[in-house]
């Protein structure tokens, strides 16, 4: 079973995993002990340090997935198909967490589990549905270049949908989401901003780790199946 450690090293899992653990630990410490309590919203405001970094990480996941999708179509790179799929898979997980943390924040702040005035939440709902359909598409088509191409095209549609949907949602309602980032920079104090950045770094590192782990696992699966097919 010396294969397992070598696999982890080859896929840089160990390095990224350690980094992620350190950052997540630091972020948690900062969020609960260092960041100042918000005068308006109290303790529940701390959800923000989870919610927004998770949301941003989800965007990064979809963006990475779209980049790999572009490589599938442009360079006919089959490995990129797997990478795109894993990135989008992670994106859906982080997206679901965004909806969850957003809902908790809404409940804590305004007493409702869902609010249609929350642009970010609505956007994520639309994207979540879109990328769920991505998986339906993948499961419905036989593996091969056709499936890789179609998944890639759909992933690119997704990344274009993000700004278009955002525009649409903004058009359709008033902007109630607490305006934290404006054109003049974050409306946060120094310590708040620092906590936010560490948390963001932690979430990105977490994505990188989960991405590497899932990718390693899927590659191993594929290798084993190919070996089995060759031997039979």
């Amino acid at each position, binding site marked *: 079973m010396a294969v397992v450690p070598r696999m982890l090293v080859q896929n840089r899992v160990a390095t990224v995993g350690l980094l992620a653990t350190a950052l997540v630990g630091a972020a948690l410490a900062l969020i609960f002990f260092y960041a100042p309590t918000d005068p308006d919203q109290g303790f529940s405001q701390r959800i923000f340090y989870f919610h927004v970094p998770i949301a941003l990480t989800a965007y990064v996941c979809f963006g990475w997935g779209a980049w790999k999708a572009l490589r599938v179509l442009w360079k006919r790179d089959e490995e990129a198909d797997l990478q795109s799929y894993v990135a989008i898979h992670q994106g859906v997980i982080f997206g679901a967490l965004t909806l969850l943390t957003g809902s908790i924040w809404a409940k804590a702040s305004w007493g409702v589990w869902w609010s249609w005035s929350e642009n970010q939440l609505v956007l994520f709902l639309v994207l979540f549905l879109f990328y769920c359909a991505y998986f339906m598409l993948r499961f419905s088509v036989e593996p091969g270049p056709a499936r890789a191409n179609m998944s890639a095209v759909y992933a690119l549609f997704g990344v274009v949908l993000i700004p278009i949907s955002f525009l649409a949602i903004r058009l359709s309602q008033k902007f109630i989401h607490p305006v934290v980032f404006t054109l003049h920079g974050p409306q946060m104090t120094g310590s708040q901003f620092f906590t936010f950045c560490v948390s963001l770094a932690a979430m990105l590192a977490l994505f990188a780790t989960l991405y590497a782990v899932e990718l390693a696992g899927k590659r191993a699966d594929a290798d084993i199946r190919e070996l*089995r097919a060759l031997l039979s």
Partner: protein
Amino acid sequence: MIRARRLGKRYGERRVFADVDLDLDRGGLLLVTGPNGSGKTTLLRVLAGLAAPSAGELQLPPREAIGYLGHEPLVYRELTPLENLSLFGRLYRIPERGERIGMLLERFGLWEVRHERVATFSRGMQQRLGLCRVLLHDPGLLLLDEPANALDSHGLELLGDVLADRGRAVAVATHDPRSVEPLATERLAFA
């Protein structure tokens, strides 16, 4: 026409065929045999350019020089033979479409029914129309998957004429090679 070296195709982990070498030129007839499900159809689709090879090199002529008849005759059932062939004639940019279409329909015994919907035809007649479609643009490379399917004796005669024409490169996939065997210049057997 076709050059293939170590050609392979797989879907995910499912290997369909591997290590196929081919050289096929005008005048040559490649006979691909094997039981159903052995990969003959997939090979023909790869040679038609419909499926991308997973491994190896493949050189094919451009699309306008390829004619492919699959398991299905690939004609619109709700259209008439004339409408079907007019559509493909336009897409393949055939000069003097009308004459060529008329000539082919007569040759394959479909001139009388040229204005009737293909859905009313027997399978054998549909197959004959498929042969018309595939010959319409006079391709240098002809790929036929089970072409004898559903053909009656007259249809088989017509098919025989097509295969005997040495001006093209032809590849035929069939699980019953008896009639094609004598004409073959190359053979490929799938297990």
